[in-house]
């Protein structure tokens, strides 16, 4: 009787098994890479906005303080988005006829709020509090990047949990003196290894074990 399997059958089987296992691993790697990619997380993408507001112009060039518009950043969980009235405090005096600002003027005239597209997004089961971060020496740029260089506002961090954790595990690498919180160009000074722990003590920041309690962010 003829053999059912040719001599090469073993090799084919091994090759098939190898292909399947390598393929499975490859699939996981690809899925992981895509899931973590900027394409999915939206990093570096500036969405279309009703008014092409430039943080570079207002904050970087004119030097308007962050807190002029984001009024509740030091006292509340949300930093706050400026009501149309805040825009019009200046724009009722300057650039009053600029076509670019028509939606703002219409908003005020018609009592119809502006619909901004959200840039920075965290999932609904994460509860972030701006006030406690900025008062404990974490600057805006640590999460939002150098806003004063952004023509259009874009996302610079994926806000995956590992991003939050790298700071909650090692806050001493990221804390700043209070005057530096609003500095968009802040980089860790050479002696951060000495300053950091001192600042952590000064701000009464909890230890890493406490800061990584689930209940710090999730409810």
């Amino acid at each position, binding site marked *: 009787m003829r053999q059912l399997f040719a001599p090469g059958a073993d090799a084919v089987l091994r090759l098939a098994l190898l292909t399947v296992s390598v393929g499975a691993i490859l699939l996981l790697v690809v899925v992981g890479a895509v899931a973590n990619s900027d394409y999915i997380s939206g990093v570096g993408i500036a969405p279309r906005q009703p008014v092409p507001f430039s943080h570079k112009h207002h904050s970087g060039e004119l030097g308007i303080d962050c807190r002029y518009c984001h009024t509740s950043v030091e006292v509340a969980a949300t930093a706050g988005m400026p009501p149309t009235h805040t825009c019009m405090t200046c724009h009722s005096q300057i650039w009053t006829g600029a076509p670019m600002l028509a939606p703002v003027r219409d908003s005020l005239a018609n009592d119809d709020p502006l619909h901004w597209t959200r840039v920075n997004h965290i999932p609904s089961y994460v509860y972030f509090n701006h006030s406690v971060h900025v008062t404990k020496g974490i600057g805006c740029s640590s999460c939002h990047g150098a806003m004063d260089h952004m023509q259009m506002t874009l996302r610079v961090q994926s806000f995956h949990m590992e991003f939050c954790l790298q700071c909650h595990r090692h806050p001493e690498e990221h804390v700043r003196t209070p005057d530096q919180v609003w500095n968009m160009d802040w980089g860790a000074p050479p002696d951060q290894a000495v300053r950091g722990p001192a600042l952590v003590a000064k701000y009464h920041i909890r230890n890493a074990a406490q800061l990584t309690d689930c*209940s710090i962010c999730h409810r």
Partner: protein
Amino acid sequence: MPPLGFVARDASGQWRRAAEGDPAALALIRERYPAAADLLRTPDRRQFMRLMAASLALSGLAGCDDDTRDEIVPPVNQAEGSAPGSVLTYASSALVDGFANGVLVKSRDGRPIKIEGNPGHPWSRGGTDVFGQASVLGLYDPFRSQSVQFDTRESDWAAFRAALAGPLGQWRASGGQGVAILLGPSTSPSLAAQLAALQRAWPQLRLYVHVPATRAALYEGTRQAFGRPLETHWRLSGARAIVSLDGDLLDPGPQQVGAAREWADARHAQAAADGLLEMWAAGPVPSLTLAKADHPLAASPAVVSAMAQWLLARADGRAGQALPPDARRWCEAAWRALDGARGSAAVMAGLHAAADVQAAVQRLNASLGNAGRTVLHTAPLLQQAPDLAALASDMAAGQVQALLMLGVNPVYDAPCDLDFAARLSRVKLKIHAGLYADETALNVDWHLPTTHPLECWGDAYALDGTACLVQPTIRPLYDGRSLPEIVSLLADAEPRNGLDLLRAHWLGPDATPAAEQRWKQALLSGVFEDGRSPLVTVQATAAPAAAPGPAAGGPTLVFRPDPTVWDGFGADNAWLQELPKPISKVVWENVVGIGPALAAREHLATGDVVRLEAGGRTIEGPVWVYGAQADGVVSVTLGYGRSVAGQLSAGLGYNAYALRRSDAPWDGGTVTLHRTGEHRTMASTQDHTTMEGHDFVRVQHLGAAPVGDGAYRPPTLYPDHQSDGRAWGMVIDLDTCIGCNACVTACQSENNIAVVGRDEVLRGREMHWLRVDIYQSTAAAQDAAPAEAGSLAPAHFMPVPCMHCEQAPCEVGCPVEATLHDHEGLNLMVYNRCIGTRACSGYCPYKVRRFNYADYSAGAAPSIVEQRNPDVSVRARGVMEKCTYCVQRIAEARAASDRDYTPIQDGGVRTACQDACPTRAITFGDLALPGSEVARAHEDPRRYALLGELNTRPRTTYLAARAPAAGDS
């Protein structure tokens, strides 16, 4: 399969269910034990494989987060204090039957989301009840009436006013000839003044008041005793004995919040003096008052009446008439207590007690010197006018051509002998105003939607006569108007808005600066300081001969308001429907209550459907056998059997109004029971979540050795839990817990807990994070079923939230660390990690974990979504959830404390259940903070850990219930 083990009775003889331990009942319990029920229907292998493959494939999708870019819409002009996430609190009132309980309404981002107690309110003193807690859901109810209807078709206010213009001219000319107003329960002084003014302008106008949970017997009793109708309330500080004859001191109703607090404070005060404020309570139907009494007695209405006369005779120095032996013993002991505490005791009767009992109780108080000290009176606070029976006879006499029904639903809840619907159809112009397009709205010409108390201006009295403010916390969601605004459509040439009407009443025509100041004060405190109804001193009139009790012949029918939907006003509220009734723990329907002796005679068991026949009319409902119900009494509750298609309440339960006569609203006389042969399985949560162990409820008898754990901590092989900094803990006082369920509803409101519906509750899938167990004692009904009058043993209520065990078994069970401890001692539940193995629930000895089987929160109406607390995650399908100690409130306080460098003060974090509790039975705080309230409660010799022998080291512990010295009853 061996029996699903449970404990028959523990050493102290307490049980949760009458049949527990009875071998014959094993099958029943197994059937009711939801997990076991599901096991009986195991799918075959192929179906199993298919299900597993499908769920594996889909579980990946379910985990996906919808990360769509959403919008930020800042306002055009931001009002002060309205920053995103800002919380504003308004002092307002929650209404029960027109009476007020002072509350604080928490409004977040402009939306009222939670009712909190108002600690500064003189009556409610920080407490709330289920009706107040659930009212916030009522506001967002998408089934509320949203527009004016003419002949059940949508219309608008302009059309209504145009249609009214002609008749209004006639009425003004004729002085309201043929016009009648039927008002629901209202204590509003401004509305009363408005109606009085209208009656002055239209002398022919007839005013009637319809209160389904009628207080007529209370007023009639005071009229007989003191010569005029009066409102009764209590000040129990310093009280040394309480005797309740069919009383409702602790039961749901307008009196509950304030009276329960008075009782709890007095009980603590007596305990501090090494005594015990003992309560003697007798009543026909199991109630919270009867359950919490130290000397409860089941007694039929006729016996209660005889007992009242017996006590009154003793007070007058006469010999009492013959009583059944148990009632006699009870009366003698109660009399000794009353006699020994003259001037500092209180005798009380509930709104459903007969007028002769009410009169005897009032005379007793006057004779014992309690009146004016512990028992106080004011003028009647409810709007007084002829009742529905008077209206019905006037309608029959053709004297009513136009009828305005304001905040009432008489087509549903009119007594059956009035034939109201038929008489209504002969009225020419019928106008109805109400929150819902209810049964009455379907039978009228014009239906007008009213505003919810959370969205309109108004005022109301609390039971003690405090004048309270109702203030809006949001613009009306729909096109409704408040009752005063609707009356203004008739009374004023140019209709006025609710704020103007209310200010005109309280500030007078010219608002002086002083009056303005008082108004501002009222806005802040929720109380009109100058509007209190004054106390009245009473003088007993000569007692007429006591009416003989009615002859007993067959079982007596008694009516009671339902403990969760009351007279029907809560029937469309899903939280109230799914709230377990305090004694039976039945949800989503009402039952026919009978005692065990009657059940044995009639061969009836819980679930048998019976037909009740009284006066030629019948209703059908399922039987519930209450161990603590007097023999010869059949109890039915109001509020169910609604018929408006499409409403939440439609088709639930039976309609007890169909047997209720206008001359006997609470005691319906003789009733006959007929078996129908049908059996109905009711959804009762009492058997779900059964714990194994012993000594669940401990009782501290007066003068006995402490039953608490003291400083004893069993040794353990595990390392001690390391607490660095705060250590959150809770202590629940079983002595003052009255089982009112306010905490359960508060928890549901605060934590976005889903409603699952009757079918899911039948499968044991209710989602309440906090349950209230009831324990009854073996000495009670089961073995010696009460006859017409029979002594009972006290019942105990035990709220069971998550224990936050320091050595938590659930954490060992979780394969993905979705439940674990934080450094402040909280047992956390991380929803986004949970993969739904349910192992934690299996490992939990307290059975406090709830699994979301079917994404109950998804698909809620948009308006219901508006109610949700944005600080709490809305849990999805396949996730375990449980009490978090209100971690969102802790997190908020912690963030504020960190930000401002201020420590969290004792009382800085209050859980929702703690805040809601009318008797302050729940204490919460930081155990590591020296001198904190919860740390002091830990020192109480009554403190013990539930299932402490398992060495889970629970952070939630209990204070044993107090009881008279053993053998002294």
